[in-house]
């Protein structure tokens, strides 16, 4: 059978666009209810998706006044989804900086068992001082230190899973997912990541990223085909091209301005106070990505746009639309399927982590119209042929990563 796409839906509360919760017909606070997540997961299972994905950080997002934040702890949500579904994979984000590895290994291994082998752990190091202060720290640990801990922590957790003799799930161990786009994040991805979430605007760059991760994995003695690279993809679906464009324009209009500016300022690490929409972004204030604190992945993406396009503040805000840096495709189901197919066949992606513009309506459109189009083209499964997340992803069981790689990292 020819290679097929892997598709997850990122249930990013109300949807990836900053104005999603204000979209006509949308329940503004639905993202604070559990049914929002379980019903989207059931829909995703009917569409035969690989998995649902939950982003998370142990902190209240300061932008919560102007857009909903994540507010439900992922293992709790995924255990409930596990009870109400049979096949769909369950990927949750849990911090390596702010969990005790003994407890996390046990809880995640048990969630994998309870779900019948459907769990995947997205390892994040958790940027920012707000989360740090919930764990007794005045600020975030330095970037390199966060990633050193993440490497040791992840290997400790995987080793604990490998040592289990009972409560072992049908996929034996949860799938390890990694999303960091920084140099340290890419190294961690090459060493232990089985699914890699990336953020890329450009096909050529995405292809190079995927090649780098696969080559890096080979240097660690891993098989490159056992790594699934899924760029984030924000979707705006319309029955016609004009309808899709109108939907996108409306989303830009209802984006709370204070939210968009605040989020961009946070991502760039500079103040945008006093800057008007038609002023250029002060690019000279932006440091090299490897020097940036916080989340380097999104800094890298946004800085690349600024360097290439020299946009005004207003132009940049519109381009990002509060979506934070993931690529946005706007069009008919056929056009979006064309885009997905092009990236897939160019070797830029093994599939996508789909981030619908508005939840649930944007995902309903994706599941009802884009997925069938991909299925017609033979690019996506029409039935599940396994019951585990590893099975859906076509992943075997990798060797347990060994700590001896920790000190000597091939360059």
């Amino acid at each position, binding site marked *: 059978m020819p290679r097929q796409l892997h598709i997850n839906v990122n249930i990013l509360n109300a949807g990836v666009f900053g104005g999603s*919760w*204000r979209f006509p017909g*949308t*329940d*503004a*606070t639905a993202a*604070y*209810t*559990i049914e929002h997540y*379980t019903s989207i997961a059931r829909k995703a299972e009917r569409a035969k998706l690989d998995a649902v994905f939950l982003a998370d950080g*142990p*902190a*209240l*997002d300061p932008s*919560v*006044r*102007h*857009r*909903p*934040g*994540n*507010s*439900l*702890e992922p*293992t*709790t*949500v995924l*255990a*409930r*989804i*596990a*009870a*109400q579904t049979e096949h769909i994979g369950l990927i949750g984000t849990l911090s390596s*900086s*702010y*969990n*005790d*590895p*003994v*407890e996390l290994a*046990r*809880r995640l291994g*048990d*969630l994998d*068992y*309870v779900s019948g082998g459907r769990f995947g752990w997205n390892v994040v190091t958790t940027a920012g001082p*707000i989360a740090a*202060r*919930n*764990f*007794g*720290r005045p600020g975030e640990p330095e970037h390199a230190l966060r990633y050193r801990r993440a490497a040791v922590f992840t290997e400790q957790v995987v080793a604990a899973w490998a040592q289990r003799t*009972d*409560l072992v799930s049908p996929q034996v161990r949860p799938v390890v997912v990694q999303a960091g786009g920084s140099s340290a994040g890419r190294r961690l991805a090459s060493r232990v990541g089985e699914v890699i979430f990336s953020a890329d605007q450009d096909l050529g760059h995405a292809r190079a990223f995927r090649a780098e991760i696969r080559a890096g994995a080979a240097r660690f003695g891993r098989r490159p085909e056992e790594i699934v690279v899924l760029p984030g993809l924000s979707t705006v679906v319309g029955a016609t091209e004009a309808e899709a464009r109108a939907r996108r324009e409306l989303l830009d209009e209802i984006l*709370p301005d*204070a939210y968009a500016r605040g989020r961009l300022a946070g991502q760039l690490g500079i103040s945008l106070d006093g800057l008007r929409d038609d002023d250029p972004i002060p690019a000279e204030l932006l440091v090299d990505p490897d020097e940036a604190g916080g989340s380097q992945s999104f800094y890298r993406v946004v800085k690349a746009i600024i360097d290439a396009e020299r946009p005004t503040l207003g132009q940049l805000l519109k381009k990002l639309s509060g979506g934070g840096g993931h690529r946005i495709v706007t069009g008919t189901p056929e056009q979006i399927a064309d885009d997905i197919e092009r990236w897939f066949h160019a070797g830029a992606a093994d599939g996508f982590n789909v981030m619908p513009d508005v939840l649930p309506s944007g995902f309903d459109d994706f599941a009802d119209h884009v997925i069938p189009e991909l299925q017609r083209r033979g690019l996506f499964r029409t039935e599940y042929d396994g019951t585990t997340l590893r099975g859906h992803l076509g992943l075997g069981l990798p060797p347990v990563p060994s700590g001896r790689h920790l000190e000597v990292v091939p360059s």
Partner: protein
Amino acid sequence: MSIPVLLTISVGPRAVALRDAVTVAEAAEAAGVAAIRIADGTAAGRALDPTVVAAYLAGVHGGVGYVAELPTTHNAPYNAARRVLSLDRATGGRAGVALLAGDGDEVSEATAPDPGAAGPARRWAEYARVLTRLWESFPRTALVGDQDGGVVVDDTLIAPIDHEGVFYRVAGPLDGPSSVQGRPVVVADLDALDAAAVAESADVVVVDAAAAPGADAALAEALQRAGRVRRDVALLGRVAVAPGDPPGAAPLLAWAAEHRLDGLELVPGGGTGPALAVLRNLVPQLVDAGAPRPATLRAALGLRESVAVAS
């Protein structure tokens, strides 16, 4: 008469298997049990993580409450608060935590305000205070969803807790709103803890047969010192039920009345069969299954339906 009953099980291959736990939950729901307490392990070894099991079972049988045991050991309080409140919100206000006294966690230990602080009871009291304050830091009234005005959450109603104790330093606020019952129920076991340690934060206090005499008076006095009253807390007597040798309902009710116990925690030994036997034979004599289902776990325990969350 009808009194609140908790049923305690461990879930895992050496206790009640996961599939059987769904059957037990269904029977507990039908019998009108206030909550199923998911124990963190058994004498025979470890069991499945109680928060995971509770969230899973509540996704199948949501008409009964769930109390997950959670030790202070290996759990940073901010993470524990989020997990338990998420469960409480997902169950529509039918969840609680049995906070087990223990040690610290790797993340919090590294920055403990007083590295020399010690003592499980002292830690428990501080931990429970952090939980309850975090659960009140984001009142549900702050969720306004004003689409025209562009305000989804009125963040002026949300406040950090800025806790600085001897074991923990936690800024808050929590990321999610309080639940239908205000905040999750906190269950304290009086074997590892004394009444003074639990008086500030516990909603349910459990005593075994040895500790039952005098517990009511000691609890009342401790609560008064903490500025609370006796009816703010449900005092439950724990009863270990040996397989094949269930106690009669009448002696249990007489025991509860003698020591002014508000309810019972039944702990059947021997796995699924004995647990189902307790639900089918003993519980119907203690609980009126035909009574209307209380709106929240607090109400099911005879407490006020919800606690006020300051805004």
